[in-house]
């Protein structure tokens, strides 16, 4: 956000950005988090190309432990776990990105306009935020699930995005309130700038690091929520995901049968992805906030 609006401000701004990079590469939390996250991201992008079997076809001997042919073993019904795993990773990232972006866009728009405009606009938007905040998400989803016979990844991502933005909106609203009282916002108004320009050209760049962190948390939250929904059987009906894999393994007593290869990889992957995002968030906080930098 900063780089687009201040392109002619190259030489001195560079030192500021170099400083951020300097601390970013020396922050262990950020580096470890980013590496873990990248490994899974690469797995999601290239994994399905490596998979030699289809994820949902029953063409392998059932219940095989990991082997050279079936890297992560097979399910009770003769499906390749590795293929399911990499396709599941891909759908987790898609849900995370779509749900995270949806929630971030709504949260930012609501937060910025409520905080900048104040008054009646703030009252209305704040009421909307509070209403969405207390909606019992799972109850609504049960109703939605009853009406939709085929649920895709997109529907799930949209649902997560549309229900997870309130905390982001509230946090951004609070930040916007404090920035709006600064004189440079008054100056921007004297410059005849439009509300849109003032919000995204003057106020938002001042909290860009905060917005990045908000997005990361929303992204991780969306992946986690998707896994939960899938696990209780409210996930997509037309594709595979990490949560669905765990759902199938539990429903078919993988634990009792000792088929650890069925549920350990998806469980581990969800934990690692969400964990790496949260660790990255702490690391980024330290990078952006000089007071937290451990030297």
């Amino acid at each position, binding site marked *: 956000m*900063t780089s687009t*609006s*201040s392109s002619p*401000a190259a030489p*001195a*701004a560079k030192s500021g950005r170099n400083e951020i990079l300097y601390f970013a590469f020396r922050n262990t939390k950020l580096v470890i988090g980013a590496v873990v996250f990248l490994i899974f991201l690469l797995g999601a992008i290239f994994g399905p190309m490596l998979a030699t079997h289809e994820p949902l076809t029953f063409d392998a001997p059932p219940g095989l432990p990991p082997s050279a042919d079936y890297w992560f073993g097979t399910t009770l019904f003769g499906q390749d776990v590795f293929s399911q795993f990499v396709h599941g990773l891909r759908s987790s990232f898609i849900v995370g990105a779509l749900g995270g972006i949806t929630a971030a866009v709504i949260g930012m728009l609501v937060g910025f306009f409520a905080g900048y405009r104040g008054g009646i606009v703030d009252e209305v938007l704040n009421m909307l935020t509070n209403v969405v905040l207390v909606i019992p998400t799972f109850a609504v989803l049960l109703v939605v699930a009853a009406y939709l016979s085929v649920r895709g990844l997109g529907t799930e991502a949209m649902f997560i995005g549309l229900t997870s933005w309130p905390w982001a909106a509230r946090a951004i609203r609070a930040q916007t309130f404090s920035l709006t009282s*600064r*004189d*440079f916002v*008054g*100056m*921007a*108004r*004297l*410059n*005849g*700038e439009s509300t849109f320009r003032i919000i995204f050209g*003057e106020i938002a*760049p*001042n909290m860009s690091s905060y917005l990045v962190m908000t997005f990361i948390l929303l992204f991780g939250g969306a992946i986690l929520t998707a896994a939960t929904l899938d696990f209780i059987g409210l996930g997509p009906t037309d594709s595979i995901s990490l949560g669905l894999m765990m759902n199938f393994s539990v429903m078919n007593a993988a634990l009792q049968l000792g088929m650890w290869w069925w549920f350990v990889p998806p469980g581990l992957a969800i934990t690692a992805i969400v964990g790496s995002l949260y660790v990255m968030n702490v690391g980024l906080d330290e990078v952006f906030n000089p007071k937290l930098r451990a030297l």
Partner: protein
Amino acid sequence: MLKVENVSKLFRSGAFGGKKKRVIHDVDFEVKPGEVVSLIGESGSGKTTVGRMILRLTSVSEGRITFDGEDISTLKGASLKSYYRRVQGVFQDPFSSFNPIFKVGRVFRTIRREFLSDLDAATWETRLTDALNAVGLETAALDKFPHQMSGGQLQRLLIARALVLDIRLLVADEIISMLDASTRIDVLNLLGDLKRQGLSIIFVTHDLALGNYISDRIIILQKGVIVEMGATDRVFGDPQHPYTRSLLDAVPHLHERWSEEELKDLGLVADTARSGGHLIEHRENHLVRVYS
């Protein structure tokens, strides 16, 4: 040109915003072209709020403010922009007036984009250079971040920003309080030149010396109420209201020290605040608030 007609400002207060607090009471004055008016008062007297209302950054609760006969609270979009093309302001705190993450030159690019996009590049460059030189700055200053400059330099940039626009009314909130003595006189003389070219200025200040040096008219505000106003020589030459007198008495002099008794007397400044009363014409061009 600018008329402030019986303007009051109420702020909501209390837990549910049910109570209303009146911070500006019936302020009524006029600024003519080429006239310099000083709004003088202690901290919290509402002088900054009056300035912000004229700049339309704070809404008017009662009364109205007109510019060339046009009620400014009705302005929107293009007409508001054309108002800002004629009326500009400089704020109290120069550090907070610049967006800390951008170079200061961005302000001038914004001005150009919003108001002067019809100007060709060469004319714009000369105009910008002239405005910067007028406040004693070089164009190189534009390539710095706000934190790399002093408060005085930033304040001069803000003045240059207003100059570039070739405006008709400047609302200057404590405009020279951050400047050192030598720059201060340069800026004051510059503003004097502009005044002769027809620029009206509203100085919002607590600095009586500044008011005396440059203003045609003085408005003394106390707790949101005009207690005395009129031509500078009349108000300062023959102050009538006790608040004005105590303000003038409270100006320290370089060559004398206050005695203990005098210091105690100065405490009376705060105690002269009274509500009610009305302005009467003490003599021509000199109004005083009386309480009866």
